[in-house]
């Protein structure tokens, strides 16, 4: 059987953080969303469908798995919406509906579909771009349609943070090997059951570190280093080669590989390869890859009047329904020292933002500079790409031609929203 992940048009709600990856590759708890479903079907061959402009870059990241290749559907195929969250009975729901051609909808969205090989060739093409009403209609004409209760499809990016926190405790057992293989100094104070702390090979926790696993487990990945004085409250997950410098890591954090962490962080996801090396608070937030948050960068995740946080989705301000919500920071964003992010701030890909002494605007488009309270195009895309090249090389990673092409494509896709705000800034200039 093939297991094919696809996106639907709700991916737009996840922009700009999903400009550089399919929604199903966004980290949630111990890994990307899609891995949770993959684990349920370990024998299946994985196939991925995503937006055209992402396919070359994503192919490099999932080497060996076909991306946007309908001809790879050479067997009966289970198509799964990458925004589908795992639940205890999800595998049972899915397998109960396999065997004949069927599409399972959840409030009008395709949650999953099972197509016999004979139909994959005919309908497979529909999955090569994000599924919308038109594609759903075409599928419905060919297969049985079912509505099933008990399925959850992600609709907004902040839901990923919610579920990440929920899943961290549950998924600990998938990565913990029981007895720690790394080094835990005798001077480390553990509150709670020590078995809920797992320190992987070549990882080190220095004397003076406090780890509290009473509310959830803590996983420290290979070659990671936790320096004193740090306090880590579980549940928390640190990927490979994380370095934590005198930090207060409060409950509900998930850090991908190669992050540098300091200050106070709470209920936050780092996709990986990003730095928040210094003091400053970050809470209820998402941070993409290759982000650098300057010293004292801080976000608000709670309004002073305790009202719901409003946040930009598809360039419109909407009520998140959450009292606590921080910021969403896309790949390659850089913040200067002392940058203060308003509650519910969204920062686009590769933007460079500096403190103006006041909380930031709630929306900073991709590929722009924000400083002295104004938006500008900065030194342009070429300069941003060169910076990315330097940043990545410092971690031994090369910027690929496919990534450069993606940035050029995204630069054009985001031009209008960026130039609108730059024009407004120019109109505010006084000479």
């Amino acid at each position: 059987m093939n297991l094919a992940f696809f996106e639907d048009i709700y991916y737009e709600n996840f922009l700009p953080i999903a400009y550089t990856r399919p929604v199903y590759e966004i980290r949630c708890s111990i890994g990307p969303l899609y891995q949770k479903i993959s684990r349920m079907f370990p024998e299946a061959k994985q196939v991925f469908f995503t937006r055209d402009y992402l396919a070359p870059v994503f192919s490099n990241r999932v080497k060996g798995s076909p991306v946007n290749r309908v001809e790879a559907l050479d067997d009966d195929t289970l198509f799964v919406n990458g925004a589908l969250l795992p639940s205890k009975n999800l595998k049972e729901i899915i397998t109960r509906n396999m065997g004949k051609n069927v599409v399972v909808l959840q409030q009008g969205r395709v949650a999953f579909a099972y197509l016999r090989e004979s139909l994959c060739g005919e309908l497979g093409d529909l999955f090569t771009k994000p599924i919308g009403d038109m594609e759903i209609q075409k599928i419905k004409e060919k297969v049985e349609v079912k509505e099933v209760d008990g399925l959850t499809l992600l609709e907004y990016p902040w839901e990923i943070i919610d579920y990440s926190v929920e899943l961290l405790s549950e998924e600990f057992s998938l990565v913990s090997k029981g007895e720690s293989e790394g080094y835990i100094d005798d001077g480390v104070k553990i509150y709670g059951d020590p078995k809920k702390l797992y320190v992987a090979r070549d990882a080190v926790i220095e004397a003076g570190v406090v780890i509290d696993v009473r509310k959830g487990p803590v996983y420290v990945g290979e070659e990671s280093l936790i320096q004193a004085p740090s306090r880590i409250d579980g549940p928390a997950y640190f990927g490979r080669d994380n370095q934590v410098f005198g930090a207060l890591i409060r409950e509900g954090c998930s850090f991908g590989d190669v992050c540098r962490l300091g200050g106070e962080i709470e209920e936050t996801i780092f996709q990986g390869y990003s730095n928040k090396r210094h003091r400053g608070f970050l809470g209820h937030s998402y941070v993409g890859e290759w982000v650098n948050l300057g010293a004292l960068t801080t976000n608000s995740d709670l309004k002073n009047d305790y009202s719901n946080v409003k946040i930009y989705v598809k360039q419109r301000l909407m009520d998140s329904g959450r009292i606590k919500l921080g910021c969403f920071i896309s790949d390659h964003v850089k913040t200067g020292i002392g940058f203060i992010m308003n509650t519910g701030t969204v920062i686009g890909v590769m933007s460079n933002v500096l403190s103006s002494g006041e909380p930031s605007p709630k929306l900073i488009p991709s590929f722009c500079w924000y400083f002295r309270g104004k938006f500008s195009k900065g030194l342009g895309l070429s300069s941003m790409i060169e910076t990315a090249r330097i940043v990545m090389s410092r971690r031994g990673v090369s910027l690929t031609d496919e990534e450069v092409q993606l940035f050029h494509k995204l630069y054009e896709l985001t031009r209008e929203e960026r130039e609108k705000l730059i024009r407004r800034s120019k109109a505010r200039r006084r000479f």
Partner: protein
Amino acid sequence: MSVEERVKKIISEILGLDESEIKREARFVEDLGVESLDVVEMIAAMEEEFNIEIPEEEAEKNVTVGEAIEYIKKKLGENA
């Protein structure tokens, strides 16, 4: 005001310098202490003042104030 006067006025306001200090032969980086943020702000201000588009790769070729003035004059000529 001439193009030269307008350019010098923008530079003086962004850098906080007296206009008399801004000579045509002054180099932005070495003589006026311009750094990247100033460059970005100057480009934006010039674009707004003269209603022109200044590509970053062209802007960085203007090493001196005089070169910037001539560049803008040329752009205005092109636009005319």
